[in-house]
C-alpha cells in the first residue's frame, strides 16, 4: 500500500512537471497559424462590409480598385473624398452621397479598426515565418512557411507530420472528400491543403494530382529532416519540385 502511495505521488509529480515544461515551438506556431486563418477570414468579411458602406460616399473609387491591399493603402491617410491622393478628379465628379461630419467620422473609426486588424495579421505572419524558419526550415523552404505551418496544424505537430506517409499528407485537409470516397461515393481527392502551393494550383487540372503527390513526398522528407536531423535539404527538394513542375507544365 505505501509502495503504491509512493508511486502515485511520484506519478503526480512527474505529470505536473511534464505539463509545466516549456511550450514547444511547433505547438505555438500551430496556434498562431490557426489564429491567422481565422483572423484572415474575419478580416475579409469585415472589409467587404466596409467597402459596401464606403460605397455610399465614394462608389467610383470602390469600383475602380479591385485589390483590398490597394484600398487599404490608398485610404491610409483618410477617407475624405477630396483628400484621397491621385483620385482628385474622380472625387470632384463623384455622384456619391454627401455625408455629415459625424457619419464620416464613424466610417473612419471603423476603417481604423480594420487597419489595426490588418497590421495584427501581418505581425502574426511574421511570427509564423520566423518561428518556422527556426524550427522547421526545410519544409518551410519547400512549401513556404505558412503552408508548412498549416500542414503541421492538420497533422497535430511536426513530429506527427514527419511520421505520416506521404499519401496521407497529400490528402491532409481533404478528409471530407476522402472519407466520402472511402464510403463509396464520389471520386478520390487528388490533394488537400497542399493545393495552396503555386506549383499545384497553377497547373492544369489533370496534372495537379501528380504534382501534389510529388510535393507531398518531398514535404514529408523535409519534415523528417526537420524533426530528426539538422541537415539542410530544403533547397534541394524545392529545386526538384520546381523541375517536376516545369516538366508537367510543358507536357501536353
Amino acid at each position, binding site marked *: 500500500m505505501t*509502495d*503504491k*502511495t509512493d*508511486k*502515485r505521488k*511520484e*506519478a*503526480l509529480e*512527474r*505529470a*505536473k512537471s*511534464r*505539463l509545466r515544461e516549456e511550450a514547444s515551438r511547433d505547438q505555438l506556431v500551430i496556434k498562431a497559424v490557426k489564429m491567422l486563418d481565422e483572423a484572415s477570414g474575419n478580416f475579409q468579411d469585415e472589409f467587404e462590409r466596409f467597402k459596401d458602406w464606403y460605397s455610399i460616399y465614394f462608389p467610383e473609387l470602390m469600383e475602380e480598385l479591385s485589390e483590398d491591399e490597394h484600398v487599404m493603402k490608398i485610404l491610409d491617410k483618410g477617407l475624405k473624398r477630396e483628400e484621397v491622393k491621385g483620385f482628385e478628379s474622380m472625387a470632384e465628379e463623384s455622384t456619391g452621397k454627401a455625408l455629415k461630419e459625424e457619419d464620416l467620422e464613424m466610417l473612419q473609426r471603423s476603417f481604423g479598426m480594420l487597419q489595426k486588424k490588418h497590421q495584427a495579421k501581418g505581425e502574426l505572419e511574421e511570427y509564423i515565418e520566423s518561428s518556422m524558419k527556426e524550427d522547421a526550415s526545410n519544409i518551410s523552404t519547400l512549401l513556404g512557411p505558412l503552408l508548412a505551418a498549416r500542414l503541421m496544424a492538420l497533422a497535430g505537430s511536426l513530429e506527427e507530420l514527419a511520421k505520416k506517409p506521404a499519401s496521407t499528407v497529400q490528402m491532409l485537409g481533404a478528409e471530407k472528400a476522402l*472519407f466520402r470516397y*472511402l*464510403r463509396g461515393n464520389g471520386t478520390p481527392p487528388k490533394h488537400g491543403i497542399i493545393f495552396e502551393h503555386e506549383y499545384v494550383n497553377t497547373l492544369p487540372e489533370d496534372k495537379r494530382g501528380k504534382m501534389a503527390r510529388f510535393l507531398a513526398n518531398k514535404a514529408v522528407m523535409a519534415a523528417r529532416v526537420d524533426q530528426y536531423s539538422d541537415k539542410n535539404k530544403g533547397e534541394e527538394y524545392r529545386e526538384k519540385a520546381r523541375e517536376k513542375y516545369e516538366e508537367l507544365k510543358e507536357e501536353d
Partner: protein
Amino acid sequence: MDEIQPGIFSQNDNLYTVNQVPGEKVYGESLQEIDGVEYRAWHANRSKVAAAVKNGIDLAVSQEDDVLYLGAASGTTVSHFSDILTEGFVFAVEYSETVGRDLVKVADKRENIAPIIADARKPENYSDLVPEVDVVFQDISQRDQPEIFIKNAKKFLKEDGIGLIAIKAQSISSSREPEKVFEEAKEKLDEEFEIVEETRLEPYEKDHLFLKMKLK
C-alpha cells in the same frame, strides 16, 4: 440503492458509485445522499464502462484491486474507478496533455489515482510507476488498439487478472463493416486472451464492442 457489483450501485435504472470525496463533483454529475452516504451518478452514455455494466458485463473488479487504465482522458470514468477501489489504486495513462491536465486535477483530490501522461504504446516509459495490477482496462481510439492492449497486459497484468477493453470500430477502420473490424480485433486478442464476456454498447455508444478477458 442496490449494490449490483462491488462498489457499483443501481437505483431506478441509474448507476452510482459512492463518492470518496463527498461534496465534490468531477464533471457535473449529480450527487445524491441516502442515509448519510453520498452517491455519484455514473451515466452510461458518458462512460463506456458504465454502459458495459448496464448491458450486463460483470466487471469482476473488487475494492482492493489495482487497475491500469489506458486512455484515461479527463478522468471522468477514472474517478468512478477511484470510488469503487476503496482499497486499491488506479494507474491512469493518458497521452494528450490537454485532457491530461484535467486528469491531474482529478488525481490531486483523490489519493488512489496515479496520473501518467505518456504514450501507452511505450509502456517501458512508465514501468517504474505501475505495479502488477489485477485489471487492465483500455479505452483508446487508435487503430493499433489491440496491440497496445496486449503490450500493456503482458507487462503489468497479473496471471489471473482481468482484461477489459472497449473497441470503437470507427477508429480502427472507417470504411469497413464494424462486424468485420470486431472479428479482426478479437482474432488478435485471441492469441493472448480468452474472451469470457462480451457485449455491444448500444444504445449508449454506436459500433462499440466491450470485452472481458483472461490471460491464456
